[in-house]
């Protein structure tokens, strides 16, 4: 991907702080934020921060990766349902593929996702890791 500083800067709220849009009319929250509520078409939306804990809904271990991601293969990608019911797409880290279960509890961490060449922009975003119990 070709990344520019402005492009990365614009997404800082949603990528770093998990900002979503909450509809003040129907009350539903959607990530990433949108100008119009996709459920009721209301334009009366506000930016809110999502909870940083959730559960794995579905996941994949991806072996064939796009150009630029070869050093990270295999990637573990997942959809996580956060504590308020909002779902986000992200990467699972600090976990082995065989340890993952549907419903596994995870928490958000800030990690590097992409380096645009040796001298380009480095993109950071929220990933999820298992919550260690005991």
């Amino acid at each position, binding site marked *: *991907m070709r990344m520019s500083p402005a492009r990365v800067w614009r*997404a800082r709220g*949603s990528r770093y702080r998990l900002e979503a849009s909450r509809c003040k009319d129907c009350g539903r929250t*959607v*990530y*990433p934020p949108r100008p119009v509520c*996709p*459920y009721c078409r209301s334009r009366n939306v506000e930016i809110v921060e999502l909870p940083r804990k959730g559960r794995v*809904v*579905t*996941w*994949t*271990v*991806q*072996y*064939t*990766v*796009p*150009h*630029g*991601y*070869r050093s*990270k293969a295999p*990637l573990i*990608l*997942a*959809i996580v349902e956060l504590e308020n019911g909002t*779902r*986000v*797409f*992200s*990467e699972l880290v600090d976990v082995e*593929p065989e340890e993952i279960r*549907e419903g596994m509890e995870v928490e958000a961490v800030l990690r590097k*996702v*992409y380096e645009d060449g040796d001298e380009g922009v480095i*993109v950071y*975003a929220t990933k999820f890791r298992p919550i260690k119990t005991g």
Partner: protein
Amino acid sequence: MVGVGMTKIDRHYDKDMRSLAAEAALKALDDTKGADPKAVVVGNMMSSSLYQQDSLGALVADAIGLRGRGALKVEASCGSGGHAVAVGYSLVASGLYDQVMVVGIEKMCDYPTSVVTAGLAQAADAEYEVVYGASFAALNALVMRLYMSRYGAKRESIALWPVMMHENAVHNPYAQLRFRVTVEAVLRSPVIADPIRLLDAAPIGDGAAALILASEEVARKLSDAPVLIAGVGMGSDALDLASRQDLLDPISIRYAAKQAYAMAGIEPRNVDVAEIHDAFSITALLSIEGLGFAEPGKSWKELEEGRYRPGDKPSLNPSGGLKARGHPVGATGVYQVAEIAMQLRGDFPGIKCGGEIGLAMNTGGVATLTTVIVLRR
């Protein structure tokens, strides 16, 4: 529809976009009695990302001797071809032109898989999915795992789909993968993005297909066996997967199908033969359910019962489908419509299913942008 043409899907290292598009387009012209298209609609996904080539309408129109005529490219990722047909149809139905050429063209084989994978991933959400390195297969794998978990679908039952597609493609001279596979071979093939394996996925290939559409009056002069476009529908879903209300409810397919069925005055049970989108095995299941051929969560059971083979109603993908006919992404939707037209005319060179009512369903992304086109003899 008064003329169709297509090329074999293959690794056409010796042909550039001009020559490949022309091969299909000139066949379509020769399939008519002297058609003279007033505009050209090109379905294509990756000319920009892989070949740094926009203005594709001009490239194709000029290559086939139609310099001067209106031309444009329609992009809806892997659904570009079906959307190009919908646009071509509307240009004729609106009365703007009495004859329009639709050409689907895609070249994918010039670059290594990692580059093509990155190009295909542009169908997904760049800022929130692709930035993590997600491939198109990975996004479909998320859906497949959820499907298997919710409905208890067996892995070996889902593998029956690629087995059937390869069987059908053996008979299709235009197909890319003309060999049989077994359930065991599917289950032993390399994992691309767990639980999707290589033999669940459509191959990478080059191909072009073309149609000539004409108003009803002109159509009778240009062809002895014109095929009627009886219904057209389009639908969309969220670009990203996570925000969808239910990952297993393909709303873009349902919306498109509802419109197309209503316009044609038919129901799913009336369809004799269909070419549906099966970029991955899971895509086939969602397509079958979204079109109303099976209840949600039941299509894998129908495969176990041997449904959808040639002769069944509906027969699905007698061409071999995306899985084995091949999937030159932006051209696929045009291949499907051309194949169904030939099925209804009775001159498809592979497995013949015949019938009165046919359907072509093409989608881009993970059922993100869908067209459904109903044809009648």
